[in-house]
């Protein structure tokens, strides 16, 4: 195994906040890049003030949301609203190979961080911008966090049950894999190109375009067939059953029932996803259920029949799953060759999933204020150069001095002056 990580020696100036930008830079860091995260006391990342927090802890440094997206980075606290702050930003840009940003275009312009601005100080920079709607166009400065992006990009209309309002996905889904993933792919492609040619470039990911790109077939159904698809629940044309089935409810320990936030009380309902695409899998499901009489009904013998009688099929399977623990249903069906998976809760994936545990997907990192907390690992593994989270997220401004001295080559006097002037702040 190589000692060297792929991106060792690559330098990243991370001027982003919230989700897409920080998650992209986090992965660059996990694979060896040195990442300097730029924030300021006057404009900290909004996620720093959002839950979850460890019990009895508050402040900018302990948010589990922020920390999970920023491990392994150095934090430079820099006030970009002051001219001297912008000068230092340019010094950081000169040092960097990659610049990451996800503000709206007008903010980028106000801070003098457009691509045209950056190439004046670093002609070879790879500069990645990930605004909501793109850098130009009539809606370029529209506001929106992921909560608004999901509906605008079409996910809410298409997901969920047809008799329900478009309630969305329960999280700001495109923010986490689709948009940072596309950004990372583009940055790595640009990095290869730069290694070959010496030339940097501008990367622009409009979050709406990136998100829409993951919904291609629905769009082509409209552009080609004029059909407007809508919510279809958990069913698909080529499988039946294909849904989540109710399993044995779980009695909650009393301490969980008491005194917890009413917003987020742990649920006692449990479910198992079951999908049958082939007749072989159907036979496996019947066997696992003990071949009840109804399974032998002709109308369920073929996929077409199962689709035509899907309501009844689902009801009967639900009657069978209802009194069994979700993970038992999963294991039993898997033993019979049927694609099945417990609808896992966060507790399941974090504490109980033996598979994720053995693979070490979640990583626990010690943070000076937040303590030992869980971080998501990288979403892909390389056999010879496995990425790893090397340290917990930084406290706000934790590395300001270090970055100024070691990276920006400032002397102590200059740093002290800038602190006094609240440029480093």
């Amino acid at each position: 195994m190589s000692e060297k990580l792929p991106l060792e020696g690559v330098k990243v100036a991370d001027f982003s906040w919230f989700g897409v930008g920080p998650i992209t830079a986090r992965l660059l860091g996990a694979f060896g890049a040195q990442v300097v995260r730029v924030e300021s006391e006057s404009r900290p990342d909004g996620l720093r003030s959002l839950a979850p927090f460890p019990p009895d802890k508050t402040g900018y440094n302990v948010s589990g949301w922020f920390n999970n997206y920023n491990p392994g980075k150095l934090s430079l606290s820099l006030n970009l609203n002051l001219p001297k702050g912008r000068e230092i930003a340019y010094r950081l840009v000169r040092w960097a190979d990659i610049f990451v940003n996800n503000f709206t275009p007008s903010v980028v312009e106000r801070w003098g961080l457009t691509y045209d601005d950056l190439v004046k100080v670093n002609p070879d920079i790879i500069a990645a911008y990930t605004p909501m709607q793109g850098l130009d166009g009539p809606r370029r400065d529209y506001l929106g966090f992921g909560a608004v992006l999901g509906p605008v990009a079409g996910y809410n209309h298409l997901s969920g049950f047809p008799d329900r309002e478009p309630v969305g996905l329960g999280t700001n889904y495109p923010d986490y894999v689709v948009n940072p993933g596309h950004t990372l792919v583009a940055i790595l492609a640009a990095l290869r190109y730069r290694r070959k040619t010496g030339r940097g470039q501008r990367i622009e990911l409009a979050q709406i375009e990136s998100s829409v790109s993951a919904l291609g077939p629905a769009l082509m159904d409209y552009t080609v067939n004029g059909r407007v698809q809508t919510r279809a629940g958990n069913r698909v044309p080529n499988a039946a059953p294909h849904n989540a089935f109710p399993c044995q409810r779980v009695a909650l320990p009393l301490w969980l029932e008491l005194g917890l936030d009413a917003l987020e009380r742990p649920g006692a309902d449990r479910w198992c996803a079951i999908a049958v695409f082939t007749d072989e899998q159907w036979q496996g499901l019947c066997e696992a259920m003990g071949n009840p009489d109804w399974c032998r009904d002709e109308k369920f013998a073929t996929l077409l029949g199962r689709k035509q009688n899907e309501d009844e099929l689902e009801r009967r399977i639900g009657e069978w799953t209802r009194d069994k623990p979700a993970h038992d249903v999963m294991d039993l069906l898997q033993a019979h060759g049927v694609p099945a998976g417990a609808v896992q809760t966060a507790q399941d994936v974090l504490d109980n999933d033996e598979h994720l545990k053995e693979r070490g997907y979640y990583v626990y990192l010690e943070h000076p204020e937040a303590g030992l907390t869980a971080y998501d690992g990288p979403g892909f593994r390389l056999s010879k150069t496995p990425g790893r989270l090397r340290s917990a997220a930084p406290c706000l401004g934790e590395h300001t001095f270090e970055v100024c001295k070691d990276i920006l080559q400032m002397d102590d006097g200059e740093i002290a002056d800038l602190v006094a002037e609240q440029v480093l702040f």
Partner: protein
Amino acid sequence: MTDDSALNDIRVLDISGEIGLYCAKLLADLGADVIKVEPPEGHPGRRSGPFYHDEIDPEKSLYFFNLTTSQRSITLSLQNPDGRALFKRLAATADVVVESFPPGHLDSLGLGYEHLCRIRPDIILASITGFGQWGPHSHYQWCDLVGLAMSGVMWLAGEPDDPPNRIYGNQGYISASIQAASGILMALYHRDVTGEGQQVDVSMQEALALAQETAAQTWDMQKVLRRRIGAWRVPMLQVPGIGNYACKDGYVFCYLGTPGGAPWPVMLDWMIEEGEAQDLTEEPYFSLIQELGLPLITQSVADAEAIERLAAPLARIHEVLSDFLGRRTKVEIYDEAQRRRLLIGMVSTPKDLVEDVQLNYRRYFQDVAHLELGETLRYPGAPVHLSETPWRIRRRPPFLGEHNAEVYGEVGIGPDELLTLTGAGVI
């Protein structure tokens, strides 16, 4: 066309199933020479809808079209010894192989990572599966739904009374594919620098796990489970301006009173200007609106007295807002709300997206000529723009085995041999 693409020196053999389609597409549209190696009966994606004009035909799947742009197609049976020998000849010319067989299957065919390394020492093998190459669930049966379920993502979506919801459009496959493409490019960069290839292991379950947002960290830190709550509603309180609102032609999604957007009084001003504020300019509504935001709501939900006091006036504000929005179209609301910096988005349908002024201004959609259909089809375009090495749909999706002669010719297989192999069902 000058080839200014980022991956113009990279050849990819894609022998994966549906889970790898988007990975291969990303690499192909970035300029890699992606050869889709299909079994003689065709890639399973060819049987997935929707279909062109609803003509159910493996050469007319819009699903497959969308996900195989810029690629070439050959047929090859890996079950056949001659097929495997042929695959090895191709692999000698390939930088990357993408696969999604159950772990160990390629080894059993003599085509696993170690075997491929003997043919091409610096090869990169990307294996995309439900649960990854090792671990107690690595041999579990999987599909998109199972990935969504096991990752914790599905638990978070939908109304509390319903089964947990699936996200539209095989997002488990898409997420795994995006992670795989990232891993492949990371491995390629490493190979460029060191000459060393490696295996990329992607588990759909892990690829999706980050999309739980804060759920894992909330459990870790507070031992509280985030769960599905439908339209972001607060239990016991109808909070005006949070969630879906029906309008003349569909829905808008409102997220008023949250940090980042304009505060609630800006919404009230809009209603006043239009003469539709009804009694919201009077007490107790006017004062309540001045402080209406997430802080007020989060303080109130734990306080039974506050809930009782607020329930009726909040319901009235909700009612007036519903009336106001219900008289307008979603585009009208979206554009005017955004002009006022109010956090409101329209709930777009596929039609809305195709007609979207921003996407069209930016020429997001790309027309691709299908001469054989006598038509040009409109495709979703670039997910990301690279100024020097553009993402681009370089050619229409391939017919099954369309490039057999061309690709096999490139590894020295002439027409006679091709005929023999075709006759034997190898290709």
